[in-house]
């Protein structure tokens, strides 16, 4: 087997040195009744060529598209070639967690730079070396807010937050009988201020608001921050499309106390939803409650600057049942992709890409509204996603798009009954004008409903 260093000569030499006749003799520690005394009922080993063929055939059973107009938490962006090239270096992708700093300065310095840039994008002061994804970052943010608030047990969640993030929140809050998750209603496609004010109380630790929200709308964090802070609670902005940070002001500068969400857009493809990149940035005063790994500067014995994992006492391997979280890993390689992306883009690149995304989405919306079947819903400012009502039949629309190798937007009614018949569309810098025109022409040809 090509990955095993076995040969009769070598195997024998090892066994002789150990002093046993065969490997079986080393298994006495496993009681005989517990042994599996048959082969695993699975296919036997295969050559590289055979496996490659089998996996390629499997991959080809996915439908491929010329263009995907679907966002909803996973965005199709251009990935610069430098990223794959750098990340394929074995020193980056095979390396272990940097617990031994003297032999891991590459990873540690990269993470320090990454942390710096996430703070820059969010306008907050401290962040960790990443969390698993957008949904779980909301969980960590909410639990952290409860720890910071000390005697408050309620977290308010805007209905505009990604529906699957809300499900992950529910699942993770369920074991905490003393904690409450309460939904705040939407009005005109954004968080309903009146409903929020009605639900704010002395027991609310934090309020989670999408920025932009799942429907693509830009929520006014500054307007929400006032009543939230007056009630002594924390405002947590949740951003599922990190490109928005090139378009919208940093949440930390417009009233957010914590910013979390999904940064997969920075250098990744949709990848069927993972591995993605959760982030959580907070104020300096709260840093000791921050879950996850954190990298800090340190000096060595010769006063030279280096980097180490720090504030480790909060983590599971020391704190055990009193840890801020059980999280043991970060998204490692995905942070590297994001870091490289942000450095290649720079301030002008991030702003420029964001402007292009906004332009493409506005153009798509404008052209769609020229179709008789499409109708505007609300009139909120949006970034690269928006909602339109479709008076036709979604399955007919979907079939027509598939025929042209186009993946349409999301049928929203499945997640928001009040938006039955609406579609969530996304356009990014990847969508050329001709692709957009092609989509619109395709929709124009969908047979009208009887």
């Amino acid at each position: 087997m090509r990955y095993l260093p076995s040969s009769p000569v070598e195997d024998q030499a090892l066994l002789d040195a150990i002093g046993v006749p065969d490997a079986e003799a080393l298994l006495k520690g496993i009681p005989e009744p517990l042994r599996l005394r048959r082969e695993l009922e699975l296919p036997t080993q295969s050559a590289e060529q055979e496996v490659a063929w089998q996996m390629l055939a499997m991959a080809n059973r996915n439908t491929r598209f010329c263009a995907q107009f679907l966002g909803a938490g996973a965005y199709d962006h251009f990935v610069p070639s430098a990223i794959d090239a750098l990340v394929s270096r074995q020193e980056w992708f095979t390396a272990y967690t940097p617990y031994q700093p003297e032999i891991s300065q590459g990873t540690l310095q990269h993470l320090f730079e990454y942390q710096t840039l996430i703070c820059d994008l969010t306008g907050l002061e401290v962040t960790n070396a990443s969390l698993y994804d957008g949904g779980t970052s909301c969980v960590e943010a909410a639990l952290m807010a409860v720890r910071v608030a000390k005697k408050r047990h309620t977290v308010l969640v805007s209905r505009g937050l990604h529906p699957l993030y809300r499900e992950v929140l529910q699942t993770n809050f369920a074991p905490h009988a003393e904690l409450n998750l309460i939904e705040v209603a939407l009005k005109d496609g954004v968080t309903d201020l009146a409903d929020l004010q009605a639900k704010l109380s002395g027991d609310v630790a934090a309020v989670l608001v999408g920025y932009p929200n799942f429907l693509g709308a830009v929520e006014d964090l500054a307007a929400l921050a006032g009543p939230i802070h007056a009630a002594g609670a924390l405002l947590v902005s949740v951003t599922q499309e990190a490109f928005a940070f090139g378009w919208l002001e940093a949440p930390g500068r417009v009233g957010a106390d914590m910013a979390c969400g999904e940064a997969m857009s920075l250098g990744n493809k949709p990848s069927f939803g993972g591995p993605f990149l959760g982030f959580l940035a907070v104020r300096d005063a709260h840093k000791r409650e921050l879950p996850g790994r954190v990298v800090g500067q340190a000096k060595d014995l010769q006063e030279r600057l280096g980097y180490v994992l720090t504030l480790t006492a909060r983590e599971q391997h020391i704190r055990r049942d009193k840890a801020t979280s059980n999280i043991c890993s970060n998204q490692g390689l995905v942070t590297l992709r994001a870091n490289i992306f942000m450095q290649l883009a720079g301030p002008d690149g991030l702003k420029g890409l964001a402007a292009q995304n906004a332009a493409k989405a506005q153009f798509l919306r404008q052209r769609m509204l020229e179709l008789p079947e499409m109708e505007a819903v609300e009139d909120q400012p949006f970034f690269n996603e928006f909602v339109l009502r479709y008076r036709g039949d979604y399955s007919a629309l979907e079939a027509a798009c598939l025929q042209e190798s186009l993946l349409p937007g999301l049928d929203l009614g499945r997640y928001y009954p009040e938006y039955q018949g609406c579609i969530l569309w996304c356009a990014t810098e990847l969508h050329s004008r001709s692709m957009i025109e092609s989509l619109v022409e395709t929709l124009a040809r969908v047979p009208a409903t009887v």
Partner: protein
Amino acid sequence: MFLRQREPLIFERSVPGKRGMDLPRLDVPEARDTRPGHLRRGGFDALPEVSEVDVIRHFTRLSKWNYGVDDGIYPLGSCTMKHNPRLNERVAGLPAFTDSHPMAPEALVQGNLELVYTLQAWLQEITGLPGVTLQPSAGAAGELTGVMLIRAYHLSRGAQRRVILIPDSGHGTNPATAAMAGYDVVELPSQPDGTISFADVTDPTSGKVRKGLQTLVAELGPEIAGAMITNPNTVGVFEYRFKEISDLLHSVGALVYMDGANMNALIGLARPGDFGVDVMHLNLHKTFSTPHGGGGPGAGPVCCAEKLRPFLPVPVVVRETEEVREGKGTAHTYRWDWDRPQSIGKVHTFFGNFGILVRALTYCLSHGSDGLKAATLRAIVNANYIRVRLQGAYALHIDSPSLHEVVFSDTLQAKHEVHTLDIAKRLIDHGYHPPTIYFPLIVPGALMIEPTESEGKEELDAFCDTMLEIAREAEEIPAALHHAPILAPLRRLDETTAARKPVLRWQKPAVLPA
């Protein structure tokens, strides 16, 4: 391996006007600015202005300050740092996988659903447990999912159990997980051989009595929701009374969770589902060769017994088998089943770290049933070879047979005032990544070595020769170890000041230095 010069922070390379990315021409009208004024992006304080060359050089140089699995043995106990096959990377990079969208209709991502189904089938057979979810993003996430399954199970039977039993040798994620799931943790003492003690254990110095499994089950009975047990345990020894432990817990209605971090010693030899485990997690980034990536991403699938299946996270993949077609074999279609009223919900936004699942299935297909078993046996042989070569020079704290890892203690070196930390740092000078140190806590000055099956005899000998050399150094020139590493790019770092006065990001200097 190491570069001589220090590569500065990228921010120090930033020069106004440089760019690393060109934007495509905008072929639609510019966006109208619909943003409220105060929500318009202002500036950035740290994003650097550098060229693509700067970035490529930066990350290439930085990489040379890292140690990877391709550089040599990575003897980290409990981490299973085995070879990361390049085929796995090639397959994971196929555009048909990387372009696929998680919210696309399931009819359009049949290849992905087939992958999920197939990997699950492999894990079912390997573990002997019929229920599987691939959603958890890491081992710790898998632990939490598994414990939440236990919780849901008890709630469905109208029971509010409040305790989880965890051995003192367990990984820190175990009690952290139990606490996150709302449970109280009660510790199980270990016997001198590292396995769970049924009997009470009296501390020889303080005289304090720690209740063993027998007493705790008798006293707490129906309050126990379950136990989280690593097997083989964290000193590499198989919990030989596992079936008895499981039977005892089952007798009071408690469930058994197995931490599968050490599955590299079991695949093909024993199946957790056969020896009393109700639910467990696997670490794909350990046993199944997916890369460590400098700390992630991992994947922590959970496998469970039939009685826990209703509670698995949604959605669950279902295979519909169509008719056998002449000459074309059986056609299958796959769909997601979201209609699971007893499900605990979702533990990941989408379906888990899919890119990692692709790599793991590729690993399985390459090895096959025979290759997987051969890998397990070789991992055990390699660990025992190291044990035999080092056991005179290093103290074996626990005498039981080792499976895939061996734990030494620094007792012999302590006589010369040399400790585990010094030995670890000195290994760096010799060009190796240190083994796992100071874990598990039940072994003082633990030095845990797991070579994995990837190491050939030459590599093992080179490593052992070095370890023996260090043992000699400890006797003859202990000062060299106290000051180690001397040859790495940096000496030992002041972690105290880093924690007292944390500097966690770069900030533009406010005033230029004089």
